[in-house]
């Protein structure tokens, strides 16, 4: 005679690690992952490693997962949070997310501990693509934008493409992924606000040098409107193609709700696109900043 208990049940058929996959051929799914670790990388960022079912490991650079964050405070978090895939470790059957602890969602994520379950939907969206003609690319990222660019560098390394990574941050102790980029054989250049090296003019000089040296067949960026503008200008000036990963608040993450739209300029005409479906990675010259 207890009707109150089901009052708050949510229903899903998320696929657990080792569970039967009802739709092995579908590109995306809802998965229940097992938290392996969730450690601080620096004062503001954490790295979450989760073990996931096989199909969840098909994510590639620039795609994202939509995460059902636990609550930081005993009340519900009502919407999922989009997060770029930072690393897919096929051998360990693990996904990694690098995230900045901001509001309730990411603060809730920060509470996850080894052994916890974590519901993730994905992989979603259109990620980065590499033109076989490109021999050397430049990735320029600021803050947590590096989380999105890291797997691109891996992709490039795997395809024998040389990478120069310019890592921008407020303070040197907030520069992440330097090791990761190094590991992948990328040349990394760190610029920080502390010593003024991250100033647009300085980054511009670095980029022009790379172009001159034939190290910039394509540009990639994420995480800063200012740096996007810089790359757009240089890209136009020197005819360097580019891609940018955009962010927007999302609801469905799948393309249904039209919450995540941003303005783009395609062939001189302004239009709106869904960051979750047509993106999050877009032609750099079409983006209108954010």
């Amino acid at each position, binding site marked *: 005679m207890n009707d109150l208990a089901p009052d708050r049940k949510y229903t899903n*058929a*998320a696929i657990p690690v080792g569970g039967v996959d009802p739709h092995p051929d579908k590109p995306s799914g809802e998965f229940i992952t097992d938290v392996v670790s969730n450690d601080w990388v620096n004062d503001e960022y954490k790295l979450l490693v989760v073990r996931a079912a096989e199909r969840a490991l098909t994510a590639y650079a620039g795609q994202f997962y939509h995460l059902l964050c636990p609550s930081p405070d005993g009340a519900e978090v*009502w919407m*999922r949070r989009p997060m770029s895939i930072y690393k897919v470790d096929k051998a360990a059957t693990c996904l990694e997310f690098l995230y900045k602890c901001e509001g309730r969602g990411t603060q809730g994520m920060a509470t996850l501990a080894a052994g916890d379950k974590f519901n993730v939907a994905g992989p979603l969206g259109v990620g980065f693509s590499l033109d076989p003609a490109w021999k050397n690319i430049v990735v320029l990222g600021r803050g947590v934008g590096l989380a999105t660019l890291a797997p691109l560098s891996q992709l490039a390394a795997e395809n024998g493409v040389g990478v120069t990574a310019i890592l921008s941050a407020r303070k040197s102790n907030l520069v992440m992924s330097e090791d990761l980029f190094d590991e992948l054989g990328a040349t990394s250049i760190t610029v920080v606000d502390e010593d003024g090296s991250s100033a647009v003019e300085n980054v511009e000089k670095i980029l022009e040098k790379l172009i001159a040296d034939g190290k910039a067949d394509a540009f990639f960026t994420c995480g800063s409107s200012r740096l996007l503008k810089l790359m757009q200008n240089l890209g136009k000036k020197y005819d360097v193609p580019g891609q940018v990963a955009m962010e927007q608040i999302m609801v469905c993450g799948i*393309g249904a*709700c039209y919450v995540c739209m941003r303005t783009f300029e395609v062939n001189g005409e302004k239009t709106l696109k869904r960051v979750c479906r047509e993106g999050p990675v877009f032609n750099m010259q079409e983006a209108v900043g954010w």
Partner: protein
Amino acid sequence: MVDLSVKIGDLTFQNPIQPASGAFSWEYNDVIDLNRLGALVAKTICREPRLGNPTPRMAETEAGIIQSIGLPGKGIDYFLENIVPEYAKFEPPLVVSVSSESAEDFAELARELSVPDVDVIECNISCPTRNTTGGNFAMQEDHTKMVMEGIRAATDKPVWAKLSPNAGDLVAVALAAEEAGADALVIANTFLSLKIRTDNFRPALGNKFGGMVSPALKPIVLRMVYQVAKEVNIPVIGVGGVTKAEDVVEYMLAGAHAVGIGYAGFRNPSALTTIIDDLETWCDERGIEKVTDLIGAVKDDDMEMDPLVAASHGV
């Protein structure tokens, strides 16, 4: 095993679970098997390409979200040419939601949407951020009657009217829609809401007002479905806060023939198909042979009263 099929007008749906308009698109096929759904429901379309409202279009609240999307889309021509064929690849009936700011255009849109691959025309006469004379006809019974009569005359397809929870006298609006010839009523759209940020004193949404969506609102919408289903002779589809099979049962007990689901599918992309499974199990465990036996089966004719209170109520 329980027979989950329900009839709404002449159309049979394999089960009473439908996505809610604006919370679904054929792209969900990336995650779930769309052929299992009771119906496919396309996002509301308008005549012209629309960009929709300023961003941000969504903000989280204490218990749910408010959103104001503004019906963006590429217009009816693009829709008929490119989107309807995507839905036609799947088996469930296609419900097409449509909105307009004028009764004439609404009727004309309904006429143009009356193509073979479209099975139902859902009239979104209740977009909460439109005003009563410019698209949110469902606030008042006379506006509802006028717009629905025009649409009825323009098409032979089944037409459903999506009503507004912001109307004061929903039963009157429902009766007006029925009288105008609606084949079913979809109850309800979202609750007009506002959130103001205390950090910058600004509305949280680019469009200022938004429609609230939350499982929290189910008891309010359920009351509306119950009140309306008692008065009308056409089927009611309950939409608001369904997150589990028991909620489908609750809506059906209150008089609904089917339910629409929005939020739950955002939270858990696999929710809709799971709710269908769970509903089947729920019925089977209780020996319910036809899910339609639940429709209006609430036991409200012999409310048990504390004897003393009953006396004071003249019972």
